[in-house]
Structures are given as structure tokens and as C-alpha cells.
């Protein structure tokens, strides 16, 4: 016992051996903390879904004839409003840029029932807390003559598809 005590105290007073022991302690601690961190991260990786079950972002909405000039057709299931003026056609989002409610048609454009954001006919913010105008999505004419909307591609507001 006494010998052990003396030996260990001898080690403690010896700079090199103490630092080796401390180093091993640090390595052990770092290893355990790292493993814990990795486990936590992998839990988050696990609960982050790789596949989601949503609607397709790119879809067809019908023939140009379905939307005569002057139409402002809200397609709630698609989350867009199809606007047709003469030979020009566009798709404007109806998902409020504030907190994701679905905006409704109002006399002056669009109005959000959740927090009172208001937008004009082109989706520009005219009142309320919405931070950005309603985005416009890319509209193309598919070879089969149907209008195709791609919600993954936002375009400059005011740019129409010419028919």
C-alpha cells in the first residue's frame, strides 16, 4: 500500500507520465463525447425523411382553351392561380409567403385569412405581414398542347407565357 502510494505519487510528480495519463483521459473523454455526438446526429438523420409523400411539383393543368381571356382561376389543390389575359398566361402561387396559409381571391387581388396579408392582382404585397410577393411559376406549353406548370422554378413576376 505504502509502496503503491509512493509509486503513484512519484508518477504524479513526473511531468512526462502525468501528461500521458491526462492525455489518455482526454482521448477517452473525446471518444465518448464524439460517439454520443454521432449517435445524436444519426438520430436526426434517421428522422429526416428521404422520400416525402407530396404532390408532384410539375404538372399539367389543361388546355389553353380551358382558360379564356380574363380568367383568374384558383386551383386550390395545386396551390396556384392561373391568370389569362389575351394571349398571355401565367401561374401565381396562392400560398401566403408569410406563414403558408392558402390565400383567397379578393376584389383587389388576394387576401390571406390567417394574418391579414393582402396582395394585388400580380401578387405584390399591398398590406399585412407578408415579407415577399407571391411567386410566379414557370409555365410551358407541352407538345400535346397542354399547359404545364413547374413549381420548382420561380420566374420574374410579370413574365407571361405567350400563346
Amino acid at each position: 500500500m505504502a509502496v503503491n502510494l509512493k509509486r503513484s505519487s512519484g508518477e504524479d510528480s513526473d511531468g512526462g507520465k502525468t501528461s500521458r495519463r491526462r492525455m489518455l483521459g482526454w482521448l477517452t473523454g473525446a471518444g465518448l463525447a464524439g460517439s454520443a455526438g454521432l449517435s445524436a446526429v444519426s438520430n436526426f438523420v434517421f428522422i429526416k425523411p428521404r422520400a416525402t409523400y407530396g404532390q408532384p411539383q410539375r404538372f399539367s393543368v389543361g388546355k389553353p382553351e380551358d382558360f379564356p381571356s380574363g380568367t383568374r382561376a384558383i386551383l386550390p389543390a395545386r396551390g396556384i392561380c392561373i391568370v389569362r389575359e389575351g394571349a398571355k398566361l401565367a401561374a401565381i402561387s396562392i400560398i401566403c409567403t408569410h406563414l403558408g396559409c392558402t390565400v383567397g381571391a379578393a376584389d383587389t387581388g388576394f387576401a390571406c385569412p390567417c394574418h391579414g396579408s393582402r396582395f394585388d392582382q400580380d401578387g405584390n404585397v399591398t398590406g399585412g405581414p407578408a415579407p415577399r410577393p407571391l411567386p410566379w411559376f414557370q409555365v410551358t406549353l407541352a407538345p400535346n398542347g397542354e399547359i404545364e406548370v413547374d413549381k420548382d422554378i420561380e420566374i420574374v413576376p410579370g413574365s407571361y407565357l405567350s400563346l
Partner: protein
Amino acid sequence: MSPATPPKASFLTALTDLPKNVWKSIFRNPLPSNDLERSSTSFTNFFLHIHPVKVHKNSLRPAYTLGLGLISFFLFVILIVTGILLMFYYVPSTTQAYDRMLDLRGSVAFGTLLRNMHRWGAHGMVAVVFMHLCRVFFTGSYKKPREFNWVVGVILFLLTLFMSFTGYLLPWDQLAFWAITVGTAIAGYAPVIGKDIQFLLMGGTSVGQEALLRFYVLHVAVLPAVLTLAIAIHFWRIRKDGGLSRAEDADPVVSLEAAPVEKASVLEPKKTYGFQGLVRGPLPKVGQIPDNTVYSWPNLFLAELFTFVVTLSAILVLSLLFNAPLEEPVNALHPPNPAKAPWYFLGLQEMVSYSAFWGGIGVPGIFVLLLLGTPYMDRSTKGVGKWFSRDRLLANTIFITFVVANIIFVIIGTFFRGANWAFVTPW
């Protein structure tokens, strides 16, 4: 004849003594009739040993605590019991959840009552936990050595809000759907990690089946487990921090100076000294100062039983009188107009209607940080244990300002907001 002869143990006496022996094997003590038995009952019973054997009279003053902490805990117990019962009939599926709500109403025995109790209990818990937080603030009880327990308490308050938030998606009605759509969008405004949190919460890009399942798991497993653990730490620390806070003058002033230690030295054997010569503080002066504590049995336990009965009765009466609302089933295409959150989030919704970031993240975040930091910023030890102490005029004024501002926002959101969140007058 040895004096230790055991009594004759016949099979018959074993049989006749069976109930008594079983009882005695479970309960180590008779119903207490003296102080020793009162102590040992508190000490040896699993459910009672979380209590101290003796409790300060100040902790039992209803006017001091208003029983708010206990009421919060009992509401949590009621919510766990009713929640587990409701789980027997609930399915977290977008096609079934709402029908199951109707089934609870129509074809499950006590279904309406249990859902009402769960709903009103949840509302009650949010309100009472907040009032408890106010009580602790106004009596200065967060001060040293209770700083960290205050932090645990603030976390418990946030967990309570999150519990309620995850709970109200589950009926899958219009309120549920749009409140969660808005709530997760608010989380999306958090800097840097906001969008990831939003995606993780919803399990996708919009509120649907994945979100319902996730909120269900959070509501019935993750959050109750975390909440239970935090409550255990909260209670444990109450004991370790010396019981409930009380004013300095709640105990008679005694000298904190130790008896002169040097005289207790073994080198001076003429006098003998006990502990009091060696330990610091007033502890050894037992019997010399008036004792301000009473035995937990029966004083504390009766107070707790009384609080529990009153809490349960109140929830029962509310649930018999008022039915928990259930709106139309989810229509993901048409938000109700106006789309309103439950009353305790209407202050937040009102603030969000000015600015999503500042109303939903900035201001609430600063408020929570201030709450968490309160005991570390206010280091004065004055004014503990007294409601609205004059020494705490500044701190109390700031706190009341925050509380009143929030109440005003809640009132505006509840009564003064109509279609499209436009300002309306309720009369």
C-alpha cells in the same frame, strides 16, 4: 426454557393472521400516533419519501404558494391518465383521426367526458404553470440557491406549451390543421436551422400524414418522458435547495457563529463537548429556538390531498358543463376565416401578424432568454419570500409589463380580430 421461544405457529393461526400479516408486510408502520411514527411513515413509504419528514410552516401557507405548483402537477397526472385512456381509441391517421373523434363523442362510454377532461386539463395546465411562474417571480423565489430550479421551471413551461401545441393537431380538424401549418411556418423563420426544423417537424413540405404521425409520437411518448424527467429534477431540487423559499425573518434570528472550536480540543479534557463544539451554524441548538416546522404527516399530506381533490373536481365540473370544441374536418384547400390558434397562442399570432420573424421568433426568443437569465442577472438577495416586496419593485415592474403586454395581445387576438385578421370591434 429459553426466553426466545417463538410463539406456537400453527397453520390455523397463520391463516387467521393472514390479512394482518400481509398488511404489515406492505406497510411498515401503524397509522402514526406519535412523532416517531409520523417521521418513519414519511421516511419509509415509497410515495411519501419524496417529502421531507418535517416541513416549514411557511411552505404550507396557501396565501404564499396558492398551491400552483401542486395544481400543475396534479393536472399533469390527470392529463396522463385521461391521455392514456384516449389512446385506446385514437388512430394517428389522416383518414381515421377525425372519425375517431366523432366515435369518442358517439359510441365510446365516457368518451366525451374523457376528451373534455383532457382538453380542459391541458388549457388549465398552461394557465396554472404560467401563474406558478409568476408566483415564483413575484416572491423572488428564483434567487440563490434556487437559480437552476428556476431554469428547470422555465423549461417545464416551454415543454407544457409544446405539449399543448403537438396535442392540438391530433383531432385533425380545421383548427388543428391551420394552427400547425402556421406554427411550423413560424419555426421556419428561425435563423439558419429554421427550415430544417420545419422539415423535421412535418416530415415533408406540408402538413399531412407524416406530420400527424410525428406530432402523435412527440405528444404521447417523447414530450411526456422529457416532461416527467424535468418534473423529477424540479422536485428533487426543491428538497436539495432547502424547501420552498421563505423570508429571512420566517425563522427567528440566531447567531451563525460556531462555538469556539479550539476549546473542544482534546488537549483540554476538563470539559466535554458534543457536536456543537465542532460544527458550524445553528444546527446544534435544538430545543433552544422555537421550531417553525411541522410534521409532513398529516399537515403536508392533507394539504396535498385537498389540492388534488379540488383540482380534479374543478376539471370534472368543467368537463361536465362544457364540451371540448371540434371544428370541421381538415380542408387543406380552404383555411377558416379567420384562422385562430387557441387562446394561449393568440398573443403570439397577433405579434406574428406584424412580423413573422419578430413576432414568432425574435420577441418570444428574447423573452425566453430573459426568463432563463433572470436569476443570473438579478443577484440581489433582498425581497425573497414576500409577495411584491418593495426591494423588488424594478424587477416586478418589468415582469408585470411583459405579462400585461402579452395579455393585451391575447385579448386583441381573441376579440378584436375578424375575417382576414382585420381589426373588428366585438360589440
